[in-house]
């Protein structure tokens, strides 16, 4: 018959699948041009509320600023807030995009047709994550440029190599959390509540816009279990205090731990929920 199989599955073809999935996500992303405006405008708007609040609370002639500096290690409250909220926003975008990816595919109706292909199922999360990482780094780059231009906050003032190292170490953690989300969404078919919950936890417990020292002891303990805490802490130290490797070594060790642990957790959850979805038939539900 005219149905001789022409499939040639190999490691190379699996890598090509990752590339093709990333490319597909890019094509779809650029066909919704409104995203570009959001990426340009949002970094400018997002920290303003916290900055003006801090200005109001600092009192006449900023007389409360020494108290802030004693807790934060710097009196540059604009830089402190901008860095914390920028990292938070970047991670927020990543969580949202990765966490919702499978749900979006499910709602579009394309999840099943991807699942029907003889390819590594995890590619469905990993491939598009490459594009989402690239676009989120564009967001971060734009934000850094805008904060330097409009707020006078030089986020790359310190050691840029260390800055990149922190990013490299926090990326696997965040994607691990995002993949765990994306998997749970397949099981529960509801993503908003979970993402809002984690966003809220990150916002409150990681000191995105205030020093961790103002939190009660138990909340500070919770903060030590969140990778974002170490990312914000170390980037602030690098950019605002000129910290070197030795000063942030403890933070880097924790980020490395999370970088190993979170992706494994995410993958295991993905395998579990994938199996559950095949048992319960929820793949095609929306």
């Amino acid at each position, binding site marked *: 018959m005219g149905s001789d199989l022409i499939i040639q599955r190999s490691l190379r073809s699996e890598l090509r*699948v990752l590339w093709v999935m990333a490319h597909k996500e890019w094509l779809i992303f650029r066909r919704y041009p409104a995203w570009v405006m959001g990426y340009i405008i949002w970094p400018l708007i997002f920290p303003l509320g916290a900055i003006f609040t801090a200005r109001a609370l600092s009192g006449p002639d900023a007389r409360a600023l020494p108290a802030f500096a004693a807790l934060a290690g710097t009196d540059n409250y604009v830089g402190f807030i901008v860095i914390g909220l920028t990292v938070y926003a970047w991670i927020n975008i990543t969580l949202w995009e990765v966490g919702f990816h499978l749900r979006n595919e499910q709602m579009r109706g394309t999840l099943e047709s991807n699942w029907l292909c003889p390819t590594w199922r995890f590619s469905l999360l990993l491939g598009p994550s490459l594009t989402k990482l690239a676009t989120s780094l564009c967001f971060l780059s734009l934000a850094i440029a805008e904060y330097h231009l409009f707020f006078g906050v030089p986020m790359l003032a310190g050691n840029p190599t260390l800055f990149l190292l922190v990013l490299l170490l926090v990326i696997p953690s965040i994607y691990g959390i995002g993949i765990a989300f994306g998997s749970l969404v397949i099981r529960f078919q509801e993503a908003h509540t979970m993402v809002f919950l984690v966003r809220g936890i990150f916002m409150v417990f990681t000191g995105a816009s205030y020093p961790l020292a103002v939190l009660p002891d138990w909340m500070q303990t919770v903060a030590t279990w969140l990778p974002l805490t170490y990312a914000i802490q170390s980037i602030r130290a690098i950019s605002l205090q000129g910290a070197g490797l030795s000063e942030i070594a403890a933070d880097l060790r924790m980020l490395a731990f999370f970088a190993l642990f979170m992706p494994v957790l995410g993958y295991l959850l993905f395998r579990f929920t994938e199996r559950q979805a095949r048992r319960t038939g929820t793949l095609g539900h929306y």
Partner: protein
Amino acid sequence: MNDPIIEVHDLTKTYHKKTVKDEAGFWARWLPMARQTETLTAVDHISFTIARGEIFGLLGPNGAGKTTTIKMLCTLLEPTTGTATVAGYDVVRQAAQVRQNLGAVMTGERSIYWKLTGRENLAYFAALYHLPPAVARQRVNAVLEQLDLTKRADELVERYSSGMKQRVAIGKALLAKPPVLLLDEPTIGLDPQSARNLRELILEFKREGHTILLTTHYMEEADQLCDRIGIVDQGRIIALDTPTALKATINRLDVLQVEVENFEPSWRGDLTALPTVETLTTEQLGHDGVWSLALHTGDSRNLLPQLIQTIGARQGRIRHLQVKQPTLEDVFIALTGKQLRE
């Protein structure tokens, strides 16, 4: 008959759902003891085989278990019990090999990316099927040509008609030249001309040597396309044979098709009780009190005068009457007592 390429043995799919007991009050319903487990059997111990090169249809109403069966065969769903093989590979233990040997079209136009062009969609899925790049390009062009999509291949799918979108969905299933095609309700939602064109394509796929399992609730489609049909109702295959043989099983029955003015549903019991009436189905036509009745009977000659008398005694008026040859829908009605569309 050719050797079987799909074998299904005693396949079952059961779902367990937690529901609240009817007697549970508003507050009590949140407690574990107010919950009970309901079991739904979507596919109930079905068995069939499909020969290489055959078009096999699963015909039945919505909710009969057709899509669930196909989902198990294409590895989207795990069976609860039973076994199934596609091209010799077990659908549970060798799922990856099964997926290599079949192309499936499940949700039609929703199964492709509307923000990609037709060509981009096919190139994407060609890569997911691990076609080498040069082969993928050649196959994409060939499939576009076969499905008459070449002229608009580089437009976004969101601008295609429903028929074109369905063809792209089918195209992605053809890319790797799989021996087996699974088509779930392929013509649903299409206009009559598009549906007709798609059926011609399905026959062309058969001529190319593909084995096709399709599900449908359109009996004309099953009649036209399928070499054999499994009639499915409530998760079970209640009949399985060629369309001709299935219709011959009720050849002994005539179908009296009657249109009656002033019909009342309360007459059903009296009409069903008439001698030689096997089954009666009714359907309201419009809102002017006109109903269509279909009576399956082994003796239409003797039934006719009694029918006229019974309807006339109740002030009904017969405005049209014919004796029909049985169709697959009549086979379904004879087997289940209800219409395919219910």
